[in-house]
């Protein structure tokens, strides 16, 4: 494919230079992109990858779109992130770690960071701090949710980005996608599921496999938490199970904080 780019309906489309970076993460989201066996070539003709440590040795600091995976857990990561932000025209938070802190932020629930360090490393000194999503430090232009991200969705998002189309996430919850598939609702089977309050877009990945949703995409717009608690209660599922899941990826952290605040004030029944 020619370097210069092409046009779509008469509008010139540039082939942007794209870089991938990772902070604290499992690198699974990047792997999802490498896992595009069938469409990798089209992907490469759409964008020019100039930095992808997991797959290539050459690196460049000249890029337009930066995909950043992972959350920030150390000062050096914050600096790296800020440097990336300066260079990138568009900064994309790739995956739930980058968007919300991901599983990494589970350690934040211990108030005592020293205990956390000691639990894993004993007396050996290690540096770490409260886990934060990218948005705590820099402006994020676009979030791609999911743990892991869904490659079909990433492809669509990248295509839209290149075309200058806006990227719209579904605003409704996972149930919409799940019931559309004709699945049997997991609550019928006695399983917990965060589908009713979690943002859709994953195509009900987990419920399709009879695993209740864990909320990796964070809350849907207008997630009705009060009613959802009622649902959990009615189905005799321990509230702890719901809280474990809401806590898992960090997407619900604001809501949990609010719930906790209310509880502390004794406002909840």
């Amino acid at each position, binding site marked *: 494919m020619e370097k210069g780019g092409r046009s779509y309906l008469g509008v010139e489309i540039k082939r942007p230079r794209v870089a991938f970076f990772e*902070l*604290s*993460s*499992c*690198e*699974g*989201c*990047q*792997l*999802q992109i*490498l*896992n595009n*066996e*069938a469409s*990798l*070539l089209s992907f*490469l003709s759409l964008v020019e*990858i100039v930095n*992808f*440590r*997991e*797959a*290539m*040795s*050459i*690196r460049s600091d000249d890029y337009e779109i930066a995909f950043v995976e992972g959350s920030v*857990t*150390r000062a050096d*990561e914050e600096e790296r992130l800020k440097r990336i932000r300066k260079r990138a025209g568009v900064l994309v938070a790739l995956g739930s770690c980058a968007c919300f802190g*991901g*599983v*990494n932020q*589970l*350690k934040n629930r*211990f108030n005592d960071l020293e*205990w*956390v*360090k000691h*639990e*894993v*490393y*004993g007396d*050996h000194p*290690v540096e*770490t701090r409260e886990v934060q999503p990218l948005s705590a430090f820099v402006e994020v232009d676009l979030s791609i949710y999911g*743990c*892991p991200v869904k490659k079909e969705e990433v492809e669509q998002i990248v295509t839209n980005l290149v075309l200058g189309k806006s990227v719209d996430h579904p605003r409704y919850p996972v149930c919409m996608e799940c019931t559309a598939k004709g699945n049997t609702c997991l609550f019928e089977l006695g399983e917990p599921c965060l589908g009713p309050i979690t943002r859709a877009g994953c195509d009900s*990945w*987990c419920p*399709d*496999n*009879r*695993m209740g949703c*864990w909320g990796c995409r964070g809350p849907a717009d207008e997630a009705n938490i009060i009613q959802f608690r009622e649902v959990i209660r009615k189905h005799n599922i321990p509230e*702890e*199970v719901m809280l*474990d899941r809401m806590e*898992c990826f960090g997407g619900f952290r604001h809501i949990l904080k609010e719930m906790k605040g209310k509880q502390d004030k004794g406002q909840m029944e």
Partner: protein
Amino acid sequence: MKLTCDISVKHLTRVEGHGNIEICIKDGQVEKASWDVVETPRFFEAMLVGKRYENAPYICGRICGICSIGHTLASIRAVERAFAMTPSAQTEKLRLLLKHMETLQSHILHLYFLAAPDFLNATSVLELIEPHPEEVQRAARIKLLANDGADLIGGRRLHPTRTVVGGFTMLPDRSALASLERRLQAVIPDLKQAAELFASFTIPDFNRETEWVSLKGEGSYPFIGGQLISSDGVVKGEDEYLAMTNEYMVDHSTSKWSRLSRKSMAVGALARVNNNSSFLHPLAGEIAALLGLTGLTHNPYMNSIAQLVESVHVVEDSLLLIGELLGSPWQEARQIVTPREGSGVGAVEVPRGILYHYYSFDSSGRITKADCVIPTSQNNANIHYDLHELAAVMADQGKDDREIRRLAEMLVRAYDPCISCSVH
């Protein structure tokens, strides 16, 4: 000629995670040669404390994107052993099959995307697309098959959705399983071609005597659970994993180090082949012989070759497993879990070596203590000492900077380190 050089590779590429190589040679003497893991730690062991048991496999799978299936399975095994549960034969077969899919996909990813560019003078697989289209397509084909297989059994190729304590949430579609079988059969010629390709590469000639640690085969090539063995003759039970790993911290690395009978040890494909080659399936055995993998091999660069041999082995083994699974009707997918107080260890051979998860629970099934020992942390010390020795040999041979750097990078890559895993 007295050689002097200063090599510093900050964030080695084409490996999973962040690690640095430093080599400093002055007048032919190696002053410093080290392998430093600088990945940020994530503290999974702490995260788990206080969580109910079903969180363990779900969260721990996220230690690593490449071997998430292995982590999930090790975690499940630890929980099940703590609760004194025995998985059904069907569950065991499905888990092993799922494990094979991960092994195949990870090995192919490493062989073609991470290692092969070094032998073909390229910086990335992207550069191989034009000169070697069939090879790249072949790699993509095998990887796709392995990924599809993982989707079919585990629900998702990474961070699987169907694997839970007690079994599976859902069983694969039988006709899809049959078609996986056909695709696996069809991939054998591809693997033979891959073997030919790797046979044409010049594997650097470098040997350092090493203690190889793996699961101990009992009648078959081991992947999930069983006794632990080292090539120096140590044999221990699964629960005694701590005595096999002896983790300790060093200053320049955020990942822990390990040792057994010597100052360092190694795990991984080469360790497994070294310790269990008699259990390889016929074609895998043939290919091992063809590629010069016989007897105890102490050349770490041969780890890639061992991965290739294992790729063939897992395909052969998967065919047998699918045959057995399709030979009988589906049984119950999932057992009921009854938590109890206790602790358990799960040892699983993941692509990069032996992985241990350990948890202890209170009577309601909440985790009171967790420990995960990852293959790469078991290898770190060995990589480090290998680098030192390599630098010394190179300095003796008067190799230039570039060559030393190339071989050093290749050496680390040969171990296929999984760094974010190791600093979980």
